[in-house]
């Protein structure tokens, strides 16, 4: 038996949310939803875990801080010792205050860029990548719920029966 993906389309996010609640309470696993805007409160319903992007941001920031420190120490102290405002020269630690602004900026830059690139990579939405959403209308005013038979213990017919009561406007199936 081939596995199938069922795309159920709604024209209102509230209806989709109620439908998702109903399906999940019957034991259906919904793998994803597609929507032109974030649907508040859908994540816990369909069991999406909190993003770990924040942890990545911290790590990228730490990388930036380290790189900035190593870089500035090499440029300003080791490779070409600089006279920094007449302060005790040739020491990173005693001039650390003058290096703080750049460390800060570089930390922020690495965290921001790292986060943005990670986000685009993880979602496969780098410029030029093929679209991931099943229907172009989900970028306009329609909402789609994706259910995979592979992830559910029920077969297609049972799923169809349950989906029927959720008030959808269109249903589309793909064999994978």
């Amino acid at each position: 038996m081939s596995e199938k993906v069922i795309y159920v389309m709604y024209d209102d996010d509230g209806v989709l949310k109620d439908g998702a609640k109903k399906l999940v309470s019957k034991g259906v696993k919904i793998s994803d939803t597609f929507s032109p805007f974030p649907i508040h409160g859908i994540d816990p319903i369909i069991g999406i875990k909190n993003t770990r992007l924040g942890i990545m941001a911290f790590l990228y920031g730490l990388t930036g801080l380290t790189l900035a420190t190593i870089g500035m120490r090499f440029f300003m102290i080791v490779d070409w010792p600089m006279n920094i405002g007449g302060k005790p020269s040739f020491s990173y630690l005693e001039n650390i205050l003058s290096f703080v602004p750049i460390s800060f900026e570089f930390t922020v830059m690495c965290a921001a860029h790292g986060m943005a690139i990670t986000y685009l990579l993880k979602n496969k939405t780098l410029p030029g990548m093929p679209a991931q959403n099943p229907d172009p209308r989900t970028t306009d005013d329609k909402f789609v719920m994706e259910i995979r038979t592979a992830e559910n213990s029920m077969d297609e017919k049972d799923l169809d029966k349950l989906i029927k009561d959720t008030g959808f406007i269109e249903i589309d199936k793909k064999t994978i």
Partner: protein
Amino acid sequence: MEFQITQKAKRNIYLLLGTGLLLTLIGVLTGMDSNHFSTRLLTNGLIDTFFFFAMGLGALFFLALAYATETGWYASVKRIIEAVAGYLPYGMGLMGLVLLIITFMDGAHVYQWMDPDVVAHDEIIQGKTAYLNPVFFWIRTIVYFACYLIFLRGFKRRSLEEDKIGGTDLHFMNYKKGALFLVFFAVFSSTSSWDWLMSIDVHWFSTLFGWYTFAGMWCTTMVVLIMVTLYLKKLGYLEKVNDNHIHDLGKWAFATSFLWSYLWFSQFMLIWYANIGEEVTYFQMRIDNYKLLYFGMFIINFAFPMLILMSRDAKRHAGILTFIGLIIIGGHWVDVYIMVTAGSLGPTAHIGLLEIGMALTALSIFILVILKNLTKAPLTPVNHPFLDESIHHEI
């Protein structure tokens, strides 16, 4: 649901007040004969009255900010902000009293520019007398107090009226008044900190000082709001406030900690870098006499909130928020302590029973006034136009 002060809370507050007064009394009796005792007493009076007055003012500012930006999420914690802002009249009374005594004692070595003998021999202060003289100082102080009081009364009155009649007229009135308050506050927050705090180190000045003081005050205000919210939640009130609101308050505490650290560092770094004699004296004084406290409080107020409050879960955890909140309040008290004492007492200052006792006394009055204020109005506003948005707030 109307809030009632529990017997336990009352007992604890009076216990705190009693301890504070007892420690103050012991401090007074043991220290009475030492040099500069009146200066020490008034310095502490200024520290503690200003510290808690500033929290009330921070709450008023936050309320005005929320009105002016038409914020939605805060609607269900609005009465807490109003209760903290309601400390302002008491804070003004106490601080006004301390300032009055200092003025009658010709500055009492706290404000040197109030002492005619000092001014007569000090050219630098003479150059500043057009701004720094007791009459103009009091005109300004009264203008600040009057402005804050008028706006506070207006916000409170309209907030209670809104509960009865609802509609959007009052909301748009609040919107206008909130924006107007921010205009006044933008100027007054700077100038009042120059008057009350920066003029203690009368030879020195910094254009950043106003923002620095303001950021510290905002940070402590957010922490107090979190603590009061958590306390009320624990007692079973505020059923409309959920983790999302507490998370948002936690974010504010996190962000304002950074703001404060940023401004502290900006002020420090520029003066350190330029290394000009008349500017570095301020920090020289602090590093020579308060090295551990001065840098310790910076690390506490910067690193602790940064590392502990960074994660999402921490901002939703009542225990962590309370722990870090107490640390931040202590840290910012030390900040104000050094701001005032380094200029007035200098090397002779130390934290003894008197300091702790007076701080505890002021703290218990502050808590008592806030809890009393909370009983005066329903804890959740009834007809706030954004109440629905606040209930469904989700992040």
